[in-house]
């Protein structure tokens, strides 16, 4: 029972590799792809990525743990990236984050119990002129107040999940015997 890449994913990996003179350079893009496929980067996924680009597993581990966007645990369907850096903090970013935590009953870095959301406290999202800012998937939620953030949560629920999302119970679907 091993995790595998679909044929489609394998084709994509071949394209990614072809864009660099050294296949190791495809490490970040292939990890993004793995996260899209499997929902998060498990130990098994690390091995798959390492083998796909021909580098030691330990190298991929080093990369996964260095960057903040690779999830090492299952996440909610939607990641809420809430900025609290200076420009956002000056205009109520912490109040927005707190309101979201209260509403979802979980803290930053955690998943909501219903599996819908993961809250991430973000550093500057490059939307400072429209602070406070939050990103979920391809969408920006700008000039937020705690009230607007509550409405945003409703909107986000209707969006497609961030990654080919598999809550923990259905991860088996991605496995081939």
């Amino acid at each position, binding site marked *: 029972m091993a995790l595998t890449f679909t044929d489609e994913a394998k084709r994509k990996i071949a394209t990614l590799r072809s*864009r*660099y*003179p*050294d296949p*190791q*350079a*495809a*490490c*970040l*893009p292939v*990890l*993004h792809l793995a996260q899209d496929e499997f929902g998060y980067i498990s130990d098994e996924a690390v091995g798959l990525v390492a083998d796909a*680009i021909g*580098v030691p597993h330990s*190298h991929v581990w*080093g*990369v996964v743990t*260095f*960057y*903040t*966007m*690779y999830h090492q645990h299952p996440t909610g369907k939607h990641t809420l*990236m809430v900025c*609290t*850096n*200076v*420009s956002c*903090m*000056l*205009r*109520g970013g*912490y*109040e927005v*984050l*707190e309101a979201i935590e209260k509403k979802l009953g979980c803290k930053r870095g955690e998943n909501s119990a219903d599996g819908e959301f993961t809250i991430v406290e*973000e*550093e*500057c*999202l*490059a*939307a*400072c*002129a*429209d*602070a406070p800012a939050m*990103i979920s*998937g*391809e*969408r*920006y939620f700008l000039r937020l107040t705690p009230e607007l953030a509550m409405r945003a949560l409703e909107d986000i629920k209707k969006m497609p999940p961030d990654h080919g999302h598999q809550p923990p119970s259905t991860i088996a679907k991605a496995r081939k015997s």
Partner: protein
Amino acid sequence: MPVELSKMPKIVTRHFGAEEVKKIAEARKQGGYTQLKKAFAMQPQAIVDEVKKSNLRGRGGAGFPTGMKWGFIPKDAKTVYLVINADESEPGTCKDRELIYWDPHLLIEGVIISSYALGCSHAYIYIRGEMIREFAVLQRAVEEAYASGLLGAESPTAKGPFKLDLTVHRGAGAYICGEETSLLNSLEGKRGWPRLKPPFPAVKGLFGQPTIVNNVETICNIPAIIDKGAEWFAGLGTPRSGGTRILCMSGHLNKPGVFELPMGIPLRTVINDICGGVPGGKKVKAVIPGGSSMPPLDASELDIPMEFDALMTDERIKPVEVKPGVKFDMGGGKILRTMAGSGGVIVMDESTDLVAVTWRIMKFYAHESCGQCTPCREGTGWLARITERMARGEGRPGDVELCGTIAHGIAGNTICPLGEAAAWPMLGFLTKFRSEFEAKIKPGLVPEIPAHPITATGIRSPELERRG
């Protein structure tokens, strides 16, 4: 005299607000890619010379002259890479994301011309991982450019063979990858650890080959330089900085926003005339002029022209001190005032708790330190913890001095400038607002600033409270 935004020259932001220009057909109708013909009729070296003459300076942070940087590529180089830095993550900066979103084809046109000038046949755009929407926009634009034969095909008109591939590479969440050598490591599939310089990337960069790293805004200016000429571009700016400058105006402003403005416009004009002043008629207390790694200006320093040299040398800006009366020496007796940095301007009104702001800045750099150098790894953490307890009004006697000593100990002793990026604002805030820090140790000294970090404008960190 009120400033009329509509009369100001717009080079890189002229398509902001026009959704359709993302599509190549519309972009071409609006003049996109028309400068390729003119550029290809020139010798590559002539383009480099033109960029030198234009006085274009890098918009990524350091303001290094672009043409001069291009000139560092060894003449006999066989493989050259151009890498566009679209990792924008310096707090307060939000222009490159907008440039990519509104006008991806302008960036691609700039990349093609620059690659031709540099002899590069495969360019990379390193885009910040969190910019999921902008990645989609840019990737689509790149695919359109491939489909139209602008990329991936031999150019029929270039002098000599020229064919360019362009790959958009997503980061994965790490501020440090904006630093150019860290970015190159990240692009090579490694952890984003900065490299020791020298060798500089222009000599030994991506995959060991000569490499130019340029910011998005820098490269977006290239087509206009080809179009209207170096003299025109240089003439728009100040004697040593050509063109316009995007300022990202955030914080306590009535009309925050991203504005392309004449190089050297006084800060006070931007705050009052462009951004409609401070809400509630409050006074400005402090302004970060170029991203959170730059020392702040105080209310007496708002008449400074927002231009690279002025922010470093204008004598109206007080020098940053290590401790009262002792100027910070950047090496060779060079004193530090502040810098234009990334164009991220953060305005703070009179009710702002600057100790809490400093804590948030230190927390950021501590979080983003890559951990390779001890002074940066440990020092940024110490500064975050000490400013945190000061922000909570629980500073210990000696904390203010300690912050100065630690910051001074980081600066100049690290592999990359992230160390300075933390040390400079620490020393800058201490130099200009020392009494606020002291008040956190002896609460009551400055009564209008509450010892507990809650202000009228809502600066409050639950983290500070929870542990209190």
